[in-house]
């Protein structure tokens, strides 16, 4: 569930490597957050933070790569790019230029489930960026030549992010195998031959089906108040008319009958890599507490230098130079638990895999120790406080949660739910989720020249 952004903004890129975002505070005063809706169905969330006279606006549309039509993977991401290509009022090239001229930064990103556009700017320019967003939500002017040039830009983006990078290609193959026919297996950026199929007609149709106020969530974080946001949003977004949205296909997540194993040998790879992906439950699917237990499990197993896998494989057994795990649970359908490692020179991927399984297996039989559990939970909960330092992170946390059907309350309660995860819940989550037939294991090896 890769997030791709429109430009390699120095500000946004680091922050976009987020996996689990959530906010609120278990042990300290929670961030005060306000929510309301406009008549046309647009949802609005306000996260005040008055330390600097700056605001962040983020608009999240509940449309993503999952909604790419058959044969045109990459359309949602491509369309995100087209949103910068101009309207009658703000012609091509003028959108980002207008924001920059007013001292603001802007960017956008696309995931499988949603597409987000964001700006950070002085607080007295909030009305301006709302005006610009409202204009391009309704009045985008797509020309054939702009579509052609942007298609080339996206193909270059794909070469940079994926085709040039054997690790990224291997991940793409593993995802494609993991989800079977579900579109989470298609790359957000699209397959190259299908990106080439995108034309003006497809883009325009996509726009009409998905870009409407009743499919959007507005989050404003920063030096503002609910009253100010309400007045400005009603004036700028209020006049937009709700539309009939294209129905979202209800894709099956087919039963997996056995594990999949892939070997990728490439001349451009220098470092062997082990990767295993598990299809697991997401926040949207899981019973209360299960997704939170998976967060704790990911932290305990491979979240940093004190994690079980790092200690055992990197420090003690010297089988790996690095190992890490992650849980991506903010999805409308399945979530993903990933485990990746690089062997020490001279160690085979088979030996490394056995070493990993030797660490994972005991977790299925007994709960982690109290000290391990407490350390993992404290780090996760402190992470929430650290994310409150960033308007972008706050806007993303609420935007992505609402986009997959969670609530503001869910986000605010996350730290206390994490604190409530027991060792036994972690063991049960591991047993239920780290199941071989729900997994794809990929070996990437350097090929002989």
């Amino acid at each position, binding site marked *: 569930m890769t997030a791709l952004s429109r*430009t390699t903004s120095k500000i946004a890129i680091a922050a976009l490597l987020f996996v689990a975002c959530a906010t609120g505070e278990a042990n300290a005063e929670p961030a005060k957050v306000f929510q309301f809706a406009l008549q046309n169905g647009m949802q609005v969330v306000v996260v005040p933070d008055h330390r*600097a006279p700056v605001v962040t606006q983020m608009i999240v549309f509940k449309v993503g790569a999952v909604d790419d039509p058959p044969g045109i993977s990459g359309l949602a991401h491509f369309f995100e790019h087209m949103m910068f290509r101009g309207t009658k009022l703000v012609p091509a090239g003028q959108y980002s230029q207008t924001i920059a001229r007013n001292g603001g*930064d802007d960017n956008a990103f696309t995931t499988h489930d949603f597409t987000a556009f964001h700006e950070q700017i002085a607080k007295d320019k909030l009305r301006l960026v709302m005006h610009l967003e409202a204009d391009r939500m309704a009045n985008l002017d797509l020309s054939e030549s702009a579509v*052609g040039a942007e298609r080339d830009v996206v193909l270059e983006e794909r070469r940079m992010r994926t085709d040039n990078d054997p690790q990224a290609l291997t991940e793409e193959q593993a995802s494609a195998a993991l989800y079977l026919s579900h579109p989470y297996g298609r790359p957000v950026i699209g397959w190259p031959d299908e990106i080439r199929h995108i034309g003006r007609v497809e883009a325009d149709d996509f726009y009409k089906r998905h870009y409407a106020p009743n499919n959007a969530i507005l989050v404003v974080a*920063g030096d503002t108040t609910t009253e100010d946001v309400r007045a400005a949003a009603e004036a700028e977004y209020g006049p937009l008319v709700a539309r009939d949205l294209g129905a979202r296909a209800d894709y099956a997540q087919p039963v997996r009958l056995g594990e999949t194993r892939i070997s990728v040998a490439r001349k451009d790879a220098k*470092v062997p890599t082990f990767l295993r992906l598990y299809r697991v439950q997401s926040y949207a699917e899981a019973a209360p507490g299960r997704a939170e237990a998976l967060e704790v499990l990911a932290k305990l197993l491979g979240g940093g230098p004190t994690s079980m896998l790092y200690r055992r494989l990197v420090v003690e057994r010297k089988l790996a130079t690095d190992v890490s795990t992650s849980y991506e649970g903010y999805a409308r359908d399945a979530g993903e638990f990933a485990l990746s490692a690089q062997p020490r020179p001279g160690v085979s991927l088979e030996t490394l895999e056995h070493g990993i399984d030797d660490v994972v297996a005991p977790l299925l039989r007994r709960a982690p120790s109290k000290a391990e559990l407490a350390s993992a939970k*404290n780090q996760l909960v*402190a992470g929430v406080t650290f994310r409150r330092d960033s308007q972008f992170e706050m806007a993303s946390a609420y935007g992505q949660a609402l986009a997959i059907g969670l609530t503001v309350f869910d986000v605010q309660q996350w730290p206390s739910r994490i604190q409530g995860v027991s060792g036994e819940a972690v063991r049960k989550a591991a047993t239920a989720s780290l199941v071989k037939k729900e997994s794809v294991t990929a070996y990437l090896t350097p090929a002989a020249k």
Partner: protein
Amino acid sequence: MKLRRLLVFFCFFAAAFAPDYAAATSVKALNVVSGAQVWFAEDHTVPMIALVASLPSGSAYDPSAKAGTAAFAAALLDEGAGNLDSGAFQDALAKHAIQLSVEPGRDSMTVTLVTLSSSAKEAFRLLGLALAHPRFDAEAVARVRAQILTELEEESENPASVAEKSFYSLYFGPHAYGHSLIGDQRSLGAVTPEDLRGFARTHWVRGGLKIALAGDTNASAAANLIRSTFGPLAADAPALPPAPGRVGAPGVHILPMPVPQPAAIFALPGLLRSDPDFLAGYVANYILGGGSSSRLTQDVREKRGLTYDVSTDLVVYRRSGILLGAVATRSDAMRQTIAVVRETLRKFAADGPTDQELADAKTYLNGSFPIAYASDVGLAAQLNAFQQVGLGIDYLDKRAGLINAITLADVRRAARRLFDPSRLTVVVAGTLPMQKAESLPSP
């Protein structure tokens, strides 16, 4: 520790201060550790503290034949100190959710410490221990050496990294700025734990130390934390490396590599931060390739669809400056892309910016500055970036006026001085289609 290596371009992106939007947070200088510059911004919005400190411990100080020593030592900062071995030190950080990271640079090592304010004492105690009493135990040294060697292998897969590394070597030649930040296989093999200990003793010092602190504490508590953490360090700063002599290697240098998308670095001599034309050059760079709507973005990406990203930065080192650009495109479009870059440079040098471009640059550079004040981590990083290039705290108030005072003639002069396509050093990592002449025609 995983090294945070945020591109060479990090140096000078955000800048300028606008009094019209003066931030609520004020920045104070604290005079607590002799030899060190300490700036503090009090802010209680979130119960956390961020510290960004840089020490005169960059790769330019690497002993000859032991390139990568500085980065190697930096990577071991959280691998054990005092009576805590690697595991015990990491446990202490994790137990309190303390985030300690380090970024090796050419001039400096930059340390970032982020902690809940409730754990501040422990966080600063651990950092103090790490800087003053690092252990460099044999096990940790061997393990981290293996990690850096793997990182070197990974870099050799990536055309952008290959181009950048070769560029520094070609551009600076034998000068200490020319070698890889993390060394190479041979030089790393020569570094012993004793070398690392010696290097830390002479470079993790308070002479030349720059510290920026922001967040949930007050000035006297901040002063105490800083004093106890950095006070015990040795006083003497190492001698600054000499300035490089001749720099640059004009022409196009191609490193064949079978990748779908070759990457290029293109560069020209830049400006020292003390140069009277620096800010004019900074504005010129913003218009050329620094901003999201820059001339290069328009000419290369928007009009022609040749790339996903093209940008330039005016990179500042203590002893040198570079106008450094990067672009990547498919093999059969690289020569055209380089030609477009040259033409954009030539036209800018010949005609200068428009009135509108200059006005837009000023409103962006001044108007966007308060964004740095919207986060503790961001503010500490921005303040430290100013400190690293030798600016005083008064610069925070003067900056907007200095930028607003820049004239069209200033930017024209800087552009003529900087944007000379005939001096352009271009390094391409990737295999390009055959062409009769190996070097590209200058437009």
